[in-house]
């Protein structure tokens, strides 16, 4: 299999303390059904844990779901850590209970896309196909 044909590897993560994992699990399943390789972190992850998992699993993208209102702290904490670790080519996206006004600010922090309530899982799949590409093999 050539590099460009391998399935995308996506980490689905639940940062912070909220236990509402319905959305994360539905997305994880929909992405798997769409043919991606999906790793789900489970609940109550710190930004450090998420970045460590992304590194260890060598993923192409990280999708985070949050509804506790901590997104403005925790999403940027993840992208900042990834920058520190030269993981700039990992695409980070998010979703959850997020006010629309926060979306531009999150994008400034390197969150490539934010999916708001009511988004169809197919829309997320389509977006990933258009915007996420397999990373070059690690040296």
């Amino acid at each position, binding site marked *: 299999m050539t590099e460009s044909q391998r399935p995308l590897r996506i980490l*689905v993560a639940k940062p*912070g*303390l*909220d*236990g*509402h*994992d*319905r959305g*994360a*699990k*539905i997305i*994880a*399943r*929909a992405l*798997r059904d769409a043919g991606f390789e*999906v*790793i*789900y*972190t*489970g*609940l*109550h992850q*710190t930004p450090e844990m998420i970045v460590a998992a992304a590194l260890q699993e060598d993923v192409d993208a990280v999708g985070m779901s949050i509804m*506790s*209102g*901590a*997104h*403005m*702290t*925790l999403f940027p*904490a993840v992208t900042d850590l990834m920058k520190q670790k030269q993981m700039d080519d990992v695409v980070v996206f998010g979703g959850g*209970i*997020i*006010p*629309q*006004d926060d979306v531009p600010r999150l994008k400034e922090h390197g969150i490539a896309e934010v999916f*708001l*309530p*009511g988004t*169809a*899982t*197919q829309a997320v799949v389509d977006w990933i196909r258009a915007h996420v590409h397999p990373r070059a093999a690690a040296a």
Partner: protein
Amino acid sequence: MSSSTKLQDPRGAARGVTPAAPERAGEPVYDREALARVLAEREAWTAGELAAALARMPRRKERFETDSGIPIPDVLDPASRREEDFRRDLGYPGRYPFTRGPQPTMYRGRLWTMRQFAGFGSPEDTNRRFKYLLQHGMTGLSTAFDMPALMGYDCDHPMSRGEVGKEGVAVSSLRDMEVLFDGIPLGEVTTSMTINASAVVALAMYVAVAERQGVPRERLGGTLQADMLKEYIAQKEWIVPPRPAVRIVCDMIEFCAREMPRWNPVSVSGYHIREAGATAVQELAFTLADGIEYVQQCVERGLAVDDFAPRLSFFFDVHNDFFEEVAKFRAARRIWARTMKERFGAKRKESLLLRTHAQTAGVSLTAQQPYNNVVRTALQAFAAVLGGTQSLHTNSLDETYALPTEEAVTIALRTQQIIGFESGADRVADPLAGSYYVEYLTDEVERRALEHIRRIDEMGGMIRAVEEGYPQREIAESAYRFQQEVERGERTIVGVNRFRTEGDEGSGIPTLRIDEAVARAQQERLAAVKRSRSPAGVAEALQRVERACREGGNVVPPVIEAVKAYATLGEVCDVFRKVFGTYREDGRF
């Protein structure tokens, strides 16, 4: 479904082991000749008018069913309950099996408690919101704690980053709780506290604050959620593994049975189970199975069932399928009454009747066209009222974005007041009783819920079922199925997958924001508390908590002493972590 649909006979199917099927007692409500005439007329209608109508225009769908998948026939009539024994299954409000309501007068005596969940930011912020809501006619307080408090962390813990005061009020020590209830007479209002894994700390703090107000604990009225089983099933806010967690819940039940006779120590909660994706039937089944497990555990530790069962309360979601939701409340009361009587041998009437709080379905609200949420909430609230709830929270239209603004929460409260004072729903108990459809659904919801409960019994009870992941798997399946049905257009969500308006993503509605300054101020207050307390006194109090945990004594009294010594919520929960270990769920999806 074909036009010659046979109505399912709800009495014919096997009942669950909980409770045992009662023997048919009496004569049918309708006499045989009258029933025969009805049946003949139904057959004539089916072959005549219905067949003709279907020939002109077929049904819009092959199959009509409730949100839980209960098939719905073309029509229901008196013959659909031909074996009905009115006295056995329905009877009268305030009388066994309480299908029609726990009190004889229902809302003619007193309306349900309008209890809006509130809590955000600092204790000062929430104290102001409490006073605002009390001035606007709310009749009971309901406290939302922030994620760190719910998970047993203080506001200065690294896990609390970004979460302090966001989803509820920040409480780390008794000092916060003193501010939260400042100027609110705890001997007069009742307070509900939505907290589970760290509930024993919240209970202890409430008792301590009340004592400082001069209100003895036996006068305190209110409800603690403290339903740990549903945390592992759905809401996923936990500290220690299920068995010790349930043990602490039972400690609270035992303590309140002895010392706080007006307090509901547990609100067995289906709300979160439903929000996580369960159907109405699954919600009912898993909630009642959780309740059964708590009763079983308390009985096994030697408590007499009638000493604690009267103070158990319940909490259900109310979703969009109006009639199924009404049926759910009615079936819940019937199953619980029979279970308590037949399985646990409860004698007191108060042990048999199921009292419930209800909340409209947060998950049903849409970010698109947010004002539609007012309508959804009103319909759901009306179903809860027709179902006979004792207490109700209506969601605010902006909750798909953030915690509600004052304006949004006022509309939500007004919705309840309009139902209570203008709709006439308060004028008779159980207004939908005898509706052929509602009675059919009540029977079906009951029968299907009992099937789940029997499976859980066969697994060895709910703790075991949770450890095996049974309810978690069932719920995840239902959630995924629901989402797929929405995406395939088999389910309509107005404004989301049909009737969309371009450009309407809900922007422009005001949302509440919690500033990070709240976290800093809370951390400063916590630091001041730690400076002013006696370290030796705290250490000694925490040791007593640890000893109770290890030796099996009731943990509530030493936790009360610990919070009075200003041991923090995180410090008490650290004792639990140390003794019982922490819980992690595997990352299956």
